[in-house]
Each structure stands twice: as structure tokens, then as C-alpha cells.
């Protein structure tokens, strides 16, 4: 059994914080809550958390200055910034302040959960792995090649990056916006199902001639690549 992920929610809206705590608990994540910037900073400095979820506008110390101060104290817990400001430049200032991810309000909880899990990095492949493996699927990051059951699968460069991101976060849900952000480096809303079409193309390439499906669609959330035969350790 993996130790449970522990996160800190710094949010001044008590109702929203209570809802988040409950939803995270149902997803198997333990959370603490701080309702202003100063106590958030104190708790984040004193305790070890896997991820901090920080609202941008907080009483006593705003979210960005909290993050800057944490980084100054050499604390590098991953931070996800929640903000009602969702424009391009707000995201840029948020990430410049030392945040690791940025989610504009209002958001779907599934989106937040997926991002927190990816930031917590309890699943998926270690960063330094040069070869990602999921079941019989193998992706070589150096050789830029993909094999399944030893058979080479030719992929377009973008399809390769898509698969690489999915396999890096194997066993975790990745949302469509996460894919657009990490594979295409765009943060806008593409309106139509452009990502879905890319994923289904990729899926047909890696699953067409094989029995075992690997790439699953998680309803209402996104996608997950996972080897169903192996039990989770």
C-alpha cells in the first residue's frame, strides 16, 4: 500500500475549503487547511506536504508572496495555484513566482485532483528513467522509439510526445487541458474535441494489432494509461 498523499489547502473561502477537503478525502488524499497566507506559510514550513494548493488571493499574505517566501526558505514542495484570474499573463506571473501549476477558477474537481496527483508524483515513472514501460509497451526516450511486444510502432513526433507524457504519468488520470498544456504548450480552450481525436489516433496505433487495451478514457476526467494485469504495488 502506498502511503497516502498529504496536501495543504490554503484557501480563505471556508466553504470551498471544506468541499475540497471532503473531495480529496474521498479520493484518498489527506489534507490540512490554512485560511490565510501567514498560517499557510507557517504550516508549509513546519510540516512535510506532498503538494500545496494555494489560492492566489488570501488575507494577511497573498498566495504569490507565500510561494516566493517558501522558495526563499529553500522549501520546494510542489505548489498548485488556484486563482480567479485566469488570463495568460496571470498564469505567467504565477509560475514565475515559483508555482508549479496554475488552475483558474472555476475548475472541475477532477481537473484539480489529476493535477495534484501528477504534482505529488506518487505514481508514474521516475523523471530520470530513459525507458518508460507500461505492460508490454515500451517507450525509449533517447532513441525516440516505441515498441510493443518487441514490435516497433512508428509514431509522429507529436504522437510520441503525447504517449511519453501519458506513460510518464502512467496509472494517473491526465486531463485534456493537461495534455494541451504539456504536449502542445498551449493554455487556451480549443473548444472542440481536438485532443480526443489525437488520443484516439494514438490509441489505434498502439492497440490496433494487440489484444490488451492500455489507454483508457476516464469518464468526465480524461485519460489514463495503465497495465490492468499488474496489480498496483
Amino acid at each position, binding site marked *: 500500500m502506498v502511503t497516502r498523499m498529504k496536501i495543504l489547502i490554503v484557501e480563505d473561502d471556508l466553504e470551498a475549503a471544506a468541499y475540497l477537503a471532503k473531495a480529496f478525502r474521498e479520493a484518498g488524499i489527506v489534507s490540512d487547511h490554512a485560511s490565510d497566507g501567514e498560517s499557510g506559510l507557517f504550516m508549509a514550513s513546519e510540516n512535510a506536504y506532498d503538494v500545496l494548493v494555494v489560492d492566489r488571493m488570501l488575507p494577511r499574505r497573498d498566495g504569490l508572496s507565500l510561494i516566493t517566501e517558501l522558495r526563499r526558505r529553500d522549501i520546494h514542495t510542489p505548489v498548485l495555484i488556484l486563482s480567479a484570474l*485566469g*488570463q*495568460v*499573463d496571470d498564469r*505567467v506571473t504565477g509560475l514565475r513566482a515559483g508555482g508549479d501549476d496554475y488552475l*483558474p477558477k*472555476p475548475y*472541475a474537481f477532477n481537473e484539480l485532483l489529476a493535477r495534484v496527483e501528477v504534482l505529488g508524483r506518487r505514481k508514474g515513472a521516475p523523471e530520470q528513467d530513459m525507458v518508460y514501460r507500461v505492460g508490454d509497451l515500451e517507450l525509449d526516450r533517447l532513441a525516440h522509439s516505441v515498441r510493443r511486444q518487441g514490435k516497433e510502432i512508428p509514431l509522429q513526433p*507529436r504522437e510520441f510526445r503525447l504517449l511519453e507524457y501519458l506513460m510518464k504519468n502512467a496509472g494517473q488520470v491526465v486531463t485534456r487541458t493537461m495534455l494541451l498544456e504539456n504536449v*502542445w504548450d*498551449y*493554455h*487556451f*480552450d*480549443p*473548444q*472542440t*474535441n*481536438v485532443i480526443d*481525436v*489525437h488520443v484516439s*489516433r494514438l490509441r489505434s496505433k498502439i492497440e490496433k494489432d494487440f489484444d490488451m487495451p492500455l489507454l483508457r478514457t476516464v469518464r*468526465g476526467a480524461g485519460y489514463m494509461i495503465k497495465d490492468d494485469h499488474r496489480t498496483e504495488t
Partner: protein
Amino acid sequence: MSKLRVLFRTTAVRLSALYLVLFSLCAVFLVFYVTGMSERLLEQQTRDAIAGEVSQIEAVYERAGMNGLLRSLERRARQPGANLYVIAGPSGEILAGNVAGLQPGLLDDEGWKSEPFRYRRFTDESRGESHVALAQVLLLDNGLRILVGHDLQEPEKFRALVRQALVVALGVMGLGALVIWFGIGRNALKRIDRMSEASTKIMAGDLSQRLPMSGSGDEFDRLSESLNAMLGRIEKLNEGLRQVSDNIAHDLKTPLTRLRNKAEAALSGNEDRGQSGALEEIIAESDQLIRTFNALLMISRVEAGSAVAEMSDVDLSQIVADCVELYEPAAEDKTLRLEADIMPGVVISGNRELIGQALGNLIDNAIKYAEGATNPLIRVAMTKSGNEAVLTVADHGPGIPEDMYREVLKRFVRLDESRSKPGTGLGLSLVEAVMEMHRGSLTLAATEPNSGDGKGLTVRMVFPARAT
């Protein structure tokens, strides 16, 4: 005379008044300096002449005695323009010479008379007039006194002339300055009055007013021009704001009503797909609303120009290629062919995210509306000509009637009355705002204007590019 007071308050008049005073002071100083110098020179010359004559007379007296001296003085006094000569007794009574009367006591001491003094000539006696002269007195050993002097009428005349010239010149300067003040000041005042008149109207709410321009291109015109440009921008922003608030009221009511109806139906159990299905639909509906709000905020943000700070050199060719690559499978999914013809390495100053979104909106529109068209080709082309990067997205869908080109750029305007296609009605508005932010232009045209149906739509965007 409040008008005169106002006139005097203009900068031009104040400045010219200041200059007038300064120049007058300089002129007065200069005139006094020059006349003072020349007077001193003249006096020196006079003194030299007198001193010379005195020493000659002394020499004559020593050589020829009293008789010779008298003869010599007689001769000298008769010359035209002669100096003044007086021979006087020891008590000062005039014995001979060409002077009728002197200031009393003048002959008491030998040497220079330090001050110019008054005297009378023989010719003056009838008129009682007196003259001013400079003189030296010589004391002879027999007790007689001899005065040699020079009339100072000429320097006096000179001084009077200079004073007169000074008065006339100052008068002319003052008069000229008054005329110029009046001209410049009144002209400036008139134009400023017209400008403030226009601004009063603008303040009263008529943002379509513009400041008057004379067409001369002077500083007033330049000021009016930049103020007018500012007003144009304000008017546009204001108009946008009003349009947004109007349209938000109209267009957000519909989805909110739908949302409410669905929630109501789910609550009363009248939903065929069961409660969770209804809730899913409600979430989808709210997502669409959020999307609309985000798009609205983004447009106003872009229009307000706050994203301009995030502009940098971006590879437009790469952005276009990425976008085409992103949408290509979606197009193929709808049996459309997305084709790209991109000139590589075109760099512009811009915001990658916003250009990507704008182009994404256009390709998305093309895919949405060209679905099922006879010609399935959607062509994205980018070339560079001169200092412009030209990006076009051309489809062969139903197109847009020519008279609606301006209309569809407005917020929430959708030609698709039935709202059968998903969308916010904000896509093209955002494209327009993004193009404006990049100082580019956006034009709509038919792809095949002569085709019967399916004229198609070609959207052309022109960006200012780096000269290569």
C-alpha cells in the same frame, strides 16, 4: 476688459511681454553705453584741442609779449567756428575776446574748469540765450587772465538725438509687441476655445466629438491629433463595454434559463436519463457558460491592451504549423482536409498563446461550418511580403454574406440562428481583438465569390513582421 486679461494670460503674450522688457532694457543699456563712450571721447578731444591752444598762446606771449598775444587772439577769434577767448583783468572784468558774459567767479583760479559752465555770446544778447562750454584759464605774470574754451553745443545735440532715437525705437518695439501679442494670443485663444468647447461636449457624453484641426500641422494640430486618437480609442473601448454588458444580459439569460430548467426537471424526477445524466448535462451547460465568460474576459483583457506586456519575438511559422497539426485530426474526423502552406522562419513580435488561440478559433470555425461541403479542403497559408506576414484560412463552406462581414466580428453575433452548432459567438471577436493588439489587420472575403453555393470564407490576417 476681461477679454484683455484673458489674452494677457496666454503663454505667448506672457513670453513676448517678458522678452519685450528684456530687449528694452538691453537696448537702453546699449544706447547709454555707446553715447557715454562717445561723449567721453568727444570731451577728451575738446580738452586736447584747448590744451594745445593754451600752450600755443603761452608760447606767443613769451615770444612776442602782450601785443603779440593780443594780435594772435584777435586773429584766432575771427576764424569761423572759433573757440572762445577772453582776456580779463585781475578782478575778472572782461577786457577783450569773443564772449559777452561769463558765470561770475569763473576766472578766479588758473587751470581747468572742472565742470562745463554757462556763457553768453555777443550775438545772443538780444535773445538772452546762454551756452555751455568747457575751458581752461591761463594766469599771466602781468595779472591778466586768459580763458580758452570750446562750445559744447555739438555733444549736447548728439545726446538729444540719441534720446529721441531711443524713445522712437522703444515706441516702435512696444507697438509691434502689442500687435504681435494680440495676433498670436487671439489666434491661440480662439483655437483653445474651440478645443475646450469640443471637450465640454465630450465630457457631456458625446464621445463621437473630435477636436478641431486647422490642417497646418503645427503644435496645436499635433496635440489635437493625438487627443483625437485617444478619444477614438476611448470611444471604441466604451462602445465595446456597452455592447458587452448589453449582450451579456441577452445572451447569458438563455443558457441560464436552460440550466435552471434542467435542474428543475432533475429535481422533480422528470428527466428521462435519470438524475446523474441530468446533473452531467447541467455541468456541461455550466462549463459552456464558464467558457463564454472566459472568452469575454479574454477579449476585454486583450482589447484593454494589458497583454501587450507579454509580447516577444515569436516564430509565426511554428505557431501556424503547430495549430494546423493540432486541428488536423479533428478535421479529418469530419472528412475535411486541412492543408497547410507555410513559409518557414517568419518572426513577428507577438503573443504565442493569443495568436495560437485566434488561429485555433478560425480553424475550428472552418471545421464546424465546412462540414459536409462539396469541396472538403480547408487551406491555411502563411507567406511574407515585405514587412508583412500574411496568414489566411480559407474554407469552402457556406461562407458569410458580404454585408454581414462587419456584423460577425461583434460579440455574440452568430449567423447560425438556430444555434445548432456549439459555440459562444465570441470566436471572431477574439480574433479581431488579437489582431488589433498585434497592430495587424483582419479581413473577411469569399473563397470562391463566383460559386453558386458554398462560396466559402477566407479570413486574412496581416501581421507587421520583422524585415529580413
